[in-house]
């Protein structure tokens, strides 16, 4: 099943990521490791969008809504529970349940793809506006103040079962990488299951999938909710890396960035958007610190270049180039063998 990718390929990439994790402390400075933890959260967001858009064909322009819900749910739950482990699961569930409720009305209401993109973006912007208005002391959930424009503090990760044993930044980096790798392997496995393959078929032809007897609405809803849960998980590690969450997680810029990462990395792959998130984040960060070029302008130019010249994204383009080379080599070898056989037969 060539076009769905192979799970063994996913495991190879996961193996390389484990090597990177182990080598990172000796390659990067301590400050870069702390920054990497934030980027890991963002790359999980990109992974979730690659799953729902790239494999399911559902353009969710407001994926950052679920990312933000995850971040806020974690922060509020961790403050109230007094530990991070349960809060992580609450964050995933909050994002997935919110998506399931929204998705039910969208998919069962037969809202078209374009409107789905608009609705999800609108929801994200509503949450942005809503959270900015929660600055008073009356806006609190349990012990956690929502903090309005300035946001709320996100407690660091702790050892499971021991709320007072906080993890150090290096340990947090290891845990974040482990979560990213697990999320990547999970999504890589998911797209090779029957569920994942049916989602790909819905992307290819919704009507045909329906005529085969699959309830496409249910599959879309399932994929939408799973991807939202993954985005929520990304939100957790982002806010842990930044140590607080602000309404900016719901902003238009955040939603657009996720789309750019997926376009640049390649929408039909899972690893492409993850790599694109890391590369573009550090590129724009270094541009921002030099103050020579406007980082957003450069990002915009990159997006235009990719849409026009590399529409499939980096990873699928490189993979396609290797595939064509392999096919050409195979044809040349076949021709050579045929010539040799002919030569032997005649002479």
């Amino acid at each position, binding site marked *: 099943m*060539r*076009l769905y990718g192979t799970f063994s390929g996913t495991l190879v990439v996961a193996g390389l990521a484990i090597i990177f994790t182990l080598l990172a402390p000796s390659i990067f400075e301590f400050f870069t490791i702390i920054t990497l933890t934030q980027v890991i959260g963002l790359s999980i967001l990109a992974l979730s969008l690659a799953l729902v858009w790239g494999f399911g064909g559902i353009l969710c322009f407001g994926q950052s809504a679920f990312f933000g819900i995850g971040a806020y749910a974690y922060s509020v739950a961790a403050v109230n529970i007094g530990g991070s482990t349960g809060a992580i699961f609450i964050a995933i569930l909050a994002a997935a349940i919110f998506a399931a409720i929204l998705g039910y009305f969208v998919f069962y209401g037969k809202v078209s793809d374009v409107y789905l993109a608009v609705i999800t973006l609108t929801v994200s912007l509503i949450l942005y506006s809503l959270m900015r208005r929660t600055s008073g002391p009356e806006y609190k959930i349990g012990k956690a103040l929502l903090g309005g424009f300035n946001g709320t503090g996100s407690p660091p990760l702790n050892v499971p079962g021991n709320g007072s044993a906080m993890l150090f930044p290096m340990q947090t980096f290891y845990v974040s990488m482990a979560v990213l790798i697990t999320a990547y392997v999970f999504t890589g496995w998911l797209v090779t299951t029957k569920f994942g393959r049916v989602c*790909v*078929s819905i992307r290819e032809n919704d*009507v045909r999938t329906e*005529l*085969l*007897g699959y*309830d496409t609405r249910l599959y879309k809803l399932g994929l939408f909710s799973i991807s939202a849960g993954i985005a929520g998980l990304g939100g957790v590690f982002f806010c842990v890396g930044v140590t607080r969450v602000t309404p900016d997680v719901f902003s238009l810029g955040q939603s657009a960035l996720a789309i750019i990462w997926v376009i640049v990395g390649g929408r039909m792959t899972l690893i492409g958007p993850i790599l694109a998130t890391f590369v573009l984040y550090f590129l724009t960060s270094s541009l921002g610190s030099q103050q020579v070029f406007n980082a957003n302008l450069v990002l915009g130019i990159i997006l235009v270049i990719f849409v026009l010249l590399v529409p499939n994204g980096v990873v699928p383009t490189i993979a396609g180039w290797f595939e064509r080379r392999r096919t050409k080599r195979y044809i040349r070898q076949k021709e050579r063998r045929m010539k040799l056989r002919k030569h032997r037969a005649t002479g």
Partner: protein
Amino acid sequence: MARREVVLETRNLSMHFGGVRAVDNVDFELREKELRCLIGPNGAGKSTFFKCLTGQLTPTSGDVVIRDIPMTGREPHAIAGLGVGIKTQVPNLFDGLSAYENLWLSARRWHGDKRASQLVKETIERLELGEICSATVGSLAHGQRQMVELGMVVAAEPWLVLLDEPAAGMTDEETYKTAELVREINKTSALIVVEHDMNFIRAISDIVTLFHQGSIFMEDTMDVISADPRAREIYLGHKS
């Protein structure tokens, strides 16, 4: 010999588009393992009737009953979910996937992974799709795409098959092969075939239903219908 059980019926089925009565009070019955061809000139209502059966259109009034289950206005997946194989007029495939993947998705709806893979293998051999099974379906010729879609129907092992113009755009050889296949499917399944190709219909049909102006004009063998002067006038548009 006892009459076979009715597996699909419509009662007073109508589909109106504004003032146009595309299907008008159609009473229709299909029995177990029966092969019925629907014919008629363009605009007679065959395809609209077909779409009402498959759930692609919700009828204005009347009922569609499949194996005593009321299916009027139900979603296509619910109708297909009863074990009904559907092939639409225009080849309707997963263009970005290979022929193998197309067949697998159909077989996997009903069977476990192992059985689905076995059925796909059998279908590829039966329909001689070996050369194109790893090709992306979007890159195939029209006739090959039609064969892949027929393969998708076969791979699911349905008990009722609804085919809309299965031989459209095929070469003579492909049409012959399709007629053979339809006959073979009919050994285990009931079929409704909407078709224009008279030679194809002659090759497969037992009873033919002639549609005219949204209603059933007559039902009989192809020989009787083609000998009927009114039917010839309807179909060919002139008296002969």
